[in-house]
């Protein structure tokens, strides 16, 4: 097994609307920054945005698709996106950005569209790569979405639904609360609560702590925010690397097992061939030549009735 040489650390591309306080890259430099990322990072981003990364052979195509997807998300109606999230019961805070909402929507894989508004259906269809004109009726959209699913995916989903209903009946599931509830809103200042209250102005900081104390607190808060952001990025990168290592080890294990089984099969073929030869040899020796090596030579018995 060969281990991948660690990539030099690069700045992750920020979302177009500045999720978690990221600085928003302009749309012209965004593809350039995406193009600097290694392929596994691009694949991860593509999955996050609901793109099938196996459809894109080269990194350039994937970067272009990601850029297009981000532009599409920027043009979407936030309320329509929230409709999808509520329908899919994905956990997000009420003040989540469009970017964060768009990353949650591909995780809602349900094909039961009851309760989803028309605008939500359009957003869902667009993020599932279903061609929409915006003039379709709800049944048309549902039909298109179902058609796009594919026969094997549908069969797998039906199978999972069947198992789910079995397990649900077995353990006696409690009905879930019908009302969707948002997660608590995420603080604008990141995880850290140091350096004054969240949302306090610099005027209030200085009023509370004096000129230097207020400015120092504000700088400390910014530094903490930056550090938290960077730590989050590093953590996410390490997680992805660990997942990648795990995936490669799994592939290596499967290849190794397949090789061993193949070797076993070849050995068994050789054994069977030698056994067949021995069988022919024994048959010829006993029944044709008549040399049974001590065993009685068989005679043909005729049974007359």
């Amino acid at each position, binding site marked *: 097994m060969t281990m991948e040489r660690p990539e030099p650390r690069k700045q992750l591309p920020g979302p177009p609307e500045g999720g978690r306080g990221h600085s928003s890259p302009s749309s012209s430099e965004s593809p350039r920054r995406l193009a600097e990322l290694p392929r596994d990072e691009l694949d991860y981003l593509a999955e996050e945005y609901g793109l099938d990364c196996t459809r894109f052979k080269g990194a350039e195509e994937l970067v272009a698709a990601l850029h297009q997807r981000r532009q599409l998300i920027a043009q979407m109606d936030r309320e329509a996106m929230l409709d999808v999230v509520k329908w899919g019961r994905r956990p997000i805070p009420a003040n989540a950005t469009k970017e964060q909402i768009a990353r949650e929507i591909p995780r809602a894989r349900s094909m039961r569209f009851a309760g989803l508004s028309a605008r939500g259906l359009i957003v869902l269809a667009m993020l599932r790569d279903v061609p929409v004109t915006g003039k379709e009726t709800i049944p048309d959209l549902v039909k298109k979405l179902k058609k796009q699913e594919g026969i094997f995916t549908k069969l797998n989903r039906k199978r999972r639904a069947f198992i789910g209903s079995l397990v649900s009946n077995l353990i006696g599931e409690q009905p879930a609360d019908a009302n969707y509830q948002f997660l608590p809103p995420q603080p604008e200042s990141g995880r850290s609560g140091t350096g004054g209250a969240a949302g306090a102005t610099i005027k209030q900081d200085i009023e509370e702590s004096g000129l230097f104390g207020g400015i120092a607190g504000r700088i400390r808060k910014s530094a903490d925010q930056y550090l938290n952001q960077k730590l989050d990025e590093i953590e996410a990168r390490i997680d992805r690397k660990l997942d990648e290592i795990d995936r490669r080890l799994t592939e290596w294990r*499967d290849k190794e097992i397949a090789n061993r089984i193949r070797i076993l099969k070849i050995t*068994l073929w050789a054994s*069977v061939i030698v*056994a067949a030869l021995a069988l022919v040899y024994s048959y010829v020796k*006993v029944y044709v030549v008549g040399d*049974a090596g001590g065993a009685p*030579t*068989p005679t043909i018995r005729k049974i007359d009735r």
Partner: protein
Amino acid sequence: MPDVDYFQLFRWSLGTVVTIYATVITLQSLWGWYVWLAGSDKYMSLLRRYVILQGLRVRIRGFWGDVAISGLLCVAFLLMWRLHGLIEAGLL
């Protein structure tokens, strides 16, 4: 001049040598894995659990074709063995 059946000699010597060789290699490999994974180091413990996890996550679906062929070959081998015994005893 001793009456030697060369085919029998070849068959038995091949079977004996190959069986002993395969057994020794397999036992050596198993012993090596056991010694390597039996370490009390905390990283080794982590690795041991990971190897067990990888083993549990193996899905037979990926190898079912080869496994089925191997099973059929085993059955064929056992049938030939039995047939061979019947021929040698003159019961066929």
